[in-house]
Every structure is written in C-alpha cells, then in structure tokens.
C-alpha cells in the first residue's frame, strides 16, 4: 500500500515538474482566454444567443402563467426551457441551433490565423511543447463556452424564479445542470470541428465556411437525408407489412443519430422533459395498460447514456484528429 502511494506521489511530482518546465500551456491558455473574451465576434455572438434564449424563455414564461392550473403541475420549472410560446420556438431549440455557432466562432481561425499573422513560427520557437498551443487554445475556448452556457442557464433559471414564482425541486435543478453540461460537451464538439478546419484550410474564410456548412448540414439536412436513404433501402408502400414500417422507422432514426445534433436534441429533450419515456418507435400494444408518469432522473439518464457517450466520443475523436494534424504539420514560415 505504502509503495503504491509513494509511486503515485512520484508520478505527481514528475507531472508537476513537466508542467512547470514547459509552462507553455498556462501562458497560452491565459492569453487565448483574454483574446476570446475581448474579441468583438464573441461579444456579438453571446449577445445574439442571449437575446434569442431570453426571448424564448420570456414567451414560455408568459404562456405558462396563462395556462397555470389547467394542466399537469409537475416540472413547471423545466417547462420554462421546453415550452414554445406562439411564434417563438422553445429555449432548447434556440440553444441547439445557435450553440454550434458559438463553438465554431471561437475556433475557426485558431491555427490558420496564427499562420497568416506569421506568429506561429515565432510562438513555436519558444521553449514550449508543440501541443501546448493546441491544448491551450482548446481549453481556453472550452472554458469560455462553459462560462457563457452556465451564465445563460443560470440567468434564465433565476429569471424563471422571479417570473413564475415556483421554486425548482432538487430533481429539476439536477436535470438543469446535466442539461447545461451536455450543452457544453455539444458546443465543445463544434469547437473541435472548427479547430480541425483551421488546420485543414489555410484561409480563415474557407475554414469558417466549411464549419458553417457542416453545421447547416447537421442541423437541417441530416434528418432529411436519413429519411431519404431509409426510404431508398426499405421502401414503404401504403399497404406495407407493419414489420417493414417498423424497420424503416428504426433505420431512419439510427441514420439520423449519426449526426451529433440529433444526439444532442434527443438527449436534451429527455433530460428536460421527464415525460419522455422512450426515444424509439413505440407500438400501440406496448402502450396498452401503461400508466402515464414521468421517469426519475436516473432512468432518464440511462435512456440517453448512449447519446452522451456518443457525443463525448465524437468530440474526442475530432479533437484527436486536430491534434494529430497539428503535431505533424510542417512549420514553414512562408
């Protein structure tokens, strides 16, 4: 036991020494953090997301107040985030749609921008490890995104308390925090996508456009494309066998789950709406005799566990790719 602890202590000492010797990560991180927070594009985007989010939330609060007492009184607090009021879509839809833009904006010029400003070779000629640069940039972006999302989520929650006056239950707070956490992971995915593009394309405009193209594809077209492919592989006529219809629906859903946006949407809906009991197709006979009710938090989490794993894996995979390309990139001044 004592030996094992001594080994761990040695390793920790070694690790700290390594960090200290380089020290690059901390410096790069601090500078990137300051850059991100003071940049104009960041201000504009946060403003956009905040206005959209708070607008959607306010409308939702109004409609909840109007219908107060009519329906199910459970989880009123969470409904602030999922209720759409009139012309505005709900808060979670806004975040799902605009969140990626935040991630893309923070990373699309991370590396090629340094290249074009001709600062990369000067930076790498300093005594730092090469991965300090990309790690520092990613971490700084991640911290900024986490700050924004947490701040926005808590702001909305606080306003909700004032507007509807119903205090959240412990479970609701738990669900809200997990929702915000999942959102951070999702936006981090887009940050790593934009980092990757900033390595693959030398022009910042090209990498920004590529990022936006992927974002639009995932947000708008991936679902349609999944339907198209599923219908092509398993055509469903009007008098098709029920088994075939079921197959078609399952295939469609699985295909669309290749898009991280679908994963995120399914995960957040399940989190913020405890009434969601399943994400796949449901047969009438399965509903027979079922008692309507909401899932406890751990069951909701179990339902979306694969989604969370998928999101984290996708984020890590894309970042690993970016890391690989960055480490192998030739540093030519020209």
């Amino acid at each position, binding site marked *: 036991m004592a030996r094992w602890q001594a080994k761990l202590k040695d390793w920790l000492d070694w690790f700290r020494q390594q960090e200290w010797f*380089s020290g690059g990560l901390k410096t790069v991180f601090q500078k990137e953090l300051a850059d991100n927070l003071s940049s104009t594009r960041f201000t504009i985007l946060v403003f956009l997301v905040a206005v959209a989010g708070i607008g959607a939330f306010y409308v939702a609060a109004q409609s909840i107040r109007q219908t107060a007492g009519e329906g199910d009184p459970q989880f009123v607090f969470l409904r602030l985030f999922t209720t759409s009021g009139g012309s505005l879509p709900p808060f979670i839809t806004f975040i799902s749609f605009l969140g990626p833009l935040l991630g893309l904006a923070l990373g699309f010029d991370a590396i090629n921008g340094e290249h074009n400003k*001709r600062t990369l070779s*000067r930076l790498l000629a300093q005594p*730092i490890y090469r991965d300090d640069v990309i790690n520092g940039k990613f971490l700084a972006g991640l911290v900024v995104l986490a700050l924004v999302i947490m701040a926005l989520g808590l702001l909305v929650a606080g306003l909700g308390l004032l507007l509807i006056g119903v205090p959240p239950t412990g479970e609701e707070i738990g669900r809200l925090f997990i929702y915000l956490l999942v959102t951070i992971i999702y936006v981090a995915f887009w940050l790593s996508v934009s980092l990757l593009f900033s390595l693959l394309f030398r022009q910042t405009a090209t990498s920004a456009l590529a990022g936006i193209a992927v974002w639009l594809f995932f947000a708008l077209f991936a679902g349609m494309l999944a339907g198209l492919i599923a219908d092509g592989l398993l055509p469903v006529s009007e008098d098709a066998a029920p088994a075939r219809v079921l197959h078609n629906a399952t295939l469609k859903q699985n295909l669309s789950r290749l898009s991280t946006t679908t994963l995120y949407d399914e995960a957040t809906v399940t989190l913020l709406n405890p009434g969601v009991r399943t994400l796949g197709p449901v047969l009438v006979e399965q509903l027979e005799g079922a008692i309507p009710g909401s899932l406890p938090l751990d069951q909701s989490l179990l339902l979306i566990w694969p989604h969370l794993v998928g999101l984290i894996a996708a984020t890590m995979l894309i970042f690993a790719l970016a890391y690989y390309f960055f480490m192998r990139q030739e*540093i030519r001044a020209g």
Partner: protein
Amino acid sequence: MAGQEAVIVTRNLTKHYGSITAVQDLNLEIREGEIFGLLGPNGAGKTTTILMLLGLTEPTSGQALVKGLDATRHPLEVKRIVGYLPDNVGFYDDLTARENLLYTAGLNLIPPAEAEKRVALSLDQVGLSNYAHRKVKEFSRGMRQRLGIADVMVKDPAIIILDEPTLGIDPEGVREMLALIVRLAREGGKTVLLSSHLLHQVQQICDRVGIFVGGRLLAAGPVALLGHQVMAGKPLEIELQAEPDNDNLFSALRSLQGVTAVERHGAFIRVRCAAGRDIRPELTPYLAGKGFTLLYLRARGYDLDDIYREYFQGEGYHGTMAG
C-alpha cells in the same frame, strides 16, 4: 573576440520534402561569439536549415547540434538558449508591443517583475520605447522587424538566429538593423547566425559567411578568403575604362602580351589574362605610351559582388565554371 568553441554544428544534415531535396549533406560549424552569414538565393534551403536547428522540422538524416544538444531530441532545451527571428516576423495585431513581448516572456517562464524590466529594456534598445503601448497593427514593416529583435532580446538567448532580418526595410532601416545586430553580438557576447540573399547588406557585419545554393553549402569562410577560393585556378579578369574609347584601344589591348581576350561589357572593357599572369603592373605605362588615359581599373573575382554572381546566377554558369 570570437571564441574557438563551436556552438552550432551540423553533421551531414539532410532534408527531403517528398522528392525535393531542400538541404543536402550540410556540414556547418559556427563558433561562439561570431556573426555567421548564411547566404544564398531564395529557395536555397536556408529557412529549412534554421528550422532544423531549432527542432521545428525533423531532418531526414544527419544531426543538428546546438551547444552539444541534438535539436531533434531536445528541442525544448535548444529553444531555451536560442532566440529566433523568423523571416517576415508577425505579431498579434490587437495587442500592444509591450503585451506581445510579455507573452514571449511568459512562454519563457520569466517571472512577471523581471519580464517587465526586460521588456522595457529591449524596447528601449531597439528605439521603440515611445511605442510600447501602441497596438502592433499601427507599426510599419521596419518597426515590426525591430520589435522582432526586441522579442529575441527579451529571451536573452546565448545564440540568435535571424532569418532575412533586413528584408523589406528601407536603407536607413537596414543600417540601423545591422548596427543593432553587431551591438548584440559584440557587447552582448552572443553568437549570431543570420540568413540573407542580400549579400551587399550583410557582408559588412559577418565574420564568416557560407554560400548556400540548391541545398548545398558551396563554400564557407571569411569574405576575403572566399574570393580566392572561388576564383582559384581561374584566369584573372580585369575591368577597365580608358579614353579615348575606340577600336584602337581594343587592338592595343589585344596586342599586349599575356592577354587572351578583350570584350566590351556595358561601359567597361573586360580583359582576360593568360592563366597565372597578371598584366596590371605593365598595363598603365603601356596604355600611356600608346596615348590612352586609364580612367578605371579593377581586378574581378575578389569581392563579394563577383562571388555572388559566380554562385547565384543561374545553373548554366556552374557548367562553364566547372568546365
């Protein structure tokens, strides 16, 4: 002045980019305290060599040693003692000059109080004190280049590598830049390696130069010795101007003993001597006796101008030189 210990050594350093050979079997030794000029045309492999010395690019084969450290295996230790000014250096435009330098200091783990002192001192030495709090985007090319030198000085390295430090700045700026480099080397006791394709500018300050063409080091040594090395075994050529400049002058020159060819090159007449012969002592009285007045006389091949032409201009010239 210059010590004898070699601080930068390369052994058969070679770099291929696919099928292109950027650097081929480079063997270089740079001694402590000297200013070494790596001279060559664009695309000769100078920047590649420098990147290999800093461990930023891996050599295909061979070794680059800086103070005995292999740059590929110990890049961090090497980068700690080497200051590098890249070709066409860039800064973060939205930060001030001071902030840019403080970032460098931070990356070098210089404590904040010490960093402030060093930044102020470096900016003062390159004459940018008044611009310390200006954003770099307002800076001219020459100011950026000087800021680049300050950036290197903040780090206070033992070895300084400058890639094309005088490129793109006006003559007055070049003069100041060269004076700054000399001061760094002589007063600071630094070893300086600078690359350039502008020989005229750097020949004044370099202790030794290496001529680098097509990835190969063709010759290395003090400028004066290099001339002899280049022209060794070649017949002497004399450039002259005389009055009256007419056909009689040509025939007079041709009839002089030891002359093998007389050609006109622009305003000058070029006279080639037989191998091993120098007609200069006889030339003046000879021409005077024939009624010509000598206006200009110069032996070609012993200054950098000619070395430059000999090595840099076109591949075709090498063939005739070897033949």
